[in-house]
């Protein structure tokens, strides 16, 4: 029974949501919207599980004095500081401390991590330039043509390269993306089908 009931729930909810796509009636829309709302609410409960795992791993590290355990204290301090100020009944997310945590810790860290992307993309471009196979060279050549066309320093250069770049983006690019997307569509449908029919049940774990 431990496995049958979940599989039954998957089958019923999956079948309902699949059929709902073809039923425009307001009643079916209502149930659809309810179910989406429900998954969001369940998600919030799941966050508690996440926080639990977080605290568990951090405290275990501190207790066992494993490498870099000191930083786990920082992580826990950040976590509990934010929770206390955020959930506290003296203002919640509008409170002075919560806003400061957000504006002076989260925002700059987020912006900086995002800006690192520019550096990593430079190193990735460098890596691409050391193409070591025929296929990698094809990728590189196409990348170079597009980069020449869209370089921010000089703007468009010569007519043949510009038109070749536009043509690559409009035609071979479109064809390959279409092939990938059709393949993905089939794969997704197959996987969804396996899940609904209970063939794919890894996510339920063992007994």
């Amino acid at each position, binding site marked *: 029974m431990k496995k049958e009931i979940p599989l039954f729930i998957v089958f019923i909810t999956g079948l309902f949501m699949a059929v709902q796509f073809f039923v425009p009636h307001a009643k079916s829309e209502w149930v659809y919207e309810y179910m989406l709302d429900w998954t969001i609410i369940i998600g919030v409960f799941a966050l508690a599980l996440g926080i639990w795992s977080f605290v568990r791993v951090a405290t275990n590290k501190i207790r066992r004095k494993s490498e870099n355990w000191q930083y786990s204290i920082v992580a826990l301090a*950040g976590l509990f500081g934010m929770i206390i100020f955020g959930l506290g009944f003296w203002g919640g997310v509008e409170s002075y401390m919560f806003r400061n945590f957000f504006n002076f810790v989260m925002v700059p860290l987020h912006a900086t991590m995002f800006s690192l992307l520019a550096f990593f993309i430079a190193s990735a471009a460098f890596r691409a330039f050391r193409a070591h196979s025929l296929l990698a060279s094809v990728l590189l050549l196409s990348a170079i043509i597009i980069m020449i066309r869209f370089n921010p320093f000089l703007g468009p250069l010569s007519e043949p390269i510009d038109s070749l770049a536009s043509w690559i983006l409009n035609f071979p690019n479109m064809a390959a993306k279409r092939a990938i997307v059709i393949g993905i569509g089939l794969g997704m449908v197959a996987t969804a089908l396996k899940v609904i029919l209970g063939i794919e049940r890894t996510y339920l774990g063992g007994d």
Partner: protein
Amino acid sequence: MRKSTMIVTLVVVLLFIASWIFKTMTAPEVDSTFDALTQGFLVTFAAFLTLAIMSFLYQDNPFYKFAEHLYVGVSAAYAMTLGFWSTLVGNLFPRVSETLCGWFQVEFSGQHDWQFLIPPILGILLLMRLSPKGGWISRWALAFIVGTTAGLNLPRFLRSDFIEQISGTFLPLLVDWEGFGHFFSNLSLSASGQFVAILSNFVIVSGVICGLIYFFFSKEHKGAFGSASRYGIWILMITFGASFGYTVMGRISLLVGRLTFLMDDWLGIISG
């Protein structure tokens, strides 16, 4: 602790304090000394975290570890707090309980929506994982989420990713055929000549078909089938290159924009 580490730490601490003092003295529009001190600290702290993250590009170091752990802790709690206020207090409580609405000072919707008792029940079932014996019952909630979304994806992807893409590939391979003379009259890729129109349609059709052939799993890629598959992977690689080049240039444009701002607007070096 190594001597170099101590020196670096000392320098960082001194710089931090110097910046704190400077930012406190130059803090705009504050009512009290305490406010100025707080403002000075917060701005300096934000700058410190920024540099700490940047330092990862050189190598892993204690400052990065500090910033990283703080970031992770704060952001995990942020998501939880936001979920609590916007989803539970904002969406769930007004539909199920007048008492809870009173506690959190939100408006009650006026009627008890019994349907909204189900998600908290499933949520609590999910939390049963934390008890050593109740783990199995948490799967009911997982089953609900996975089933719902699998069903959601099944027909919807067949529509957007599949049928519409197929019908978009029904292209005429002989566009307004008027003989070979007309066909070869304009060969430039940017021109709207017949050669280009036919070539482009041919590339799309053959690209889609051979791209799909590349994704065949249960047939050996040999002979004509293998050639088609190789042509498919070539088209895929051209696309990946194009997409890569395009993104690289997009990001570099952003960087150039920031540098131009620094040089021009701030330091006045470029145009003056």
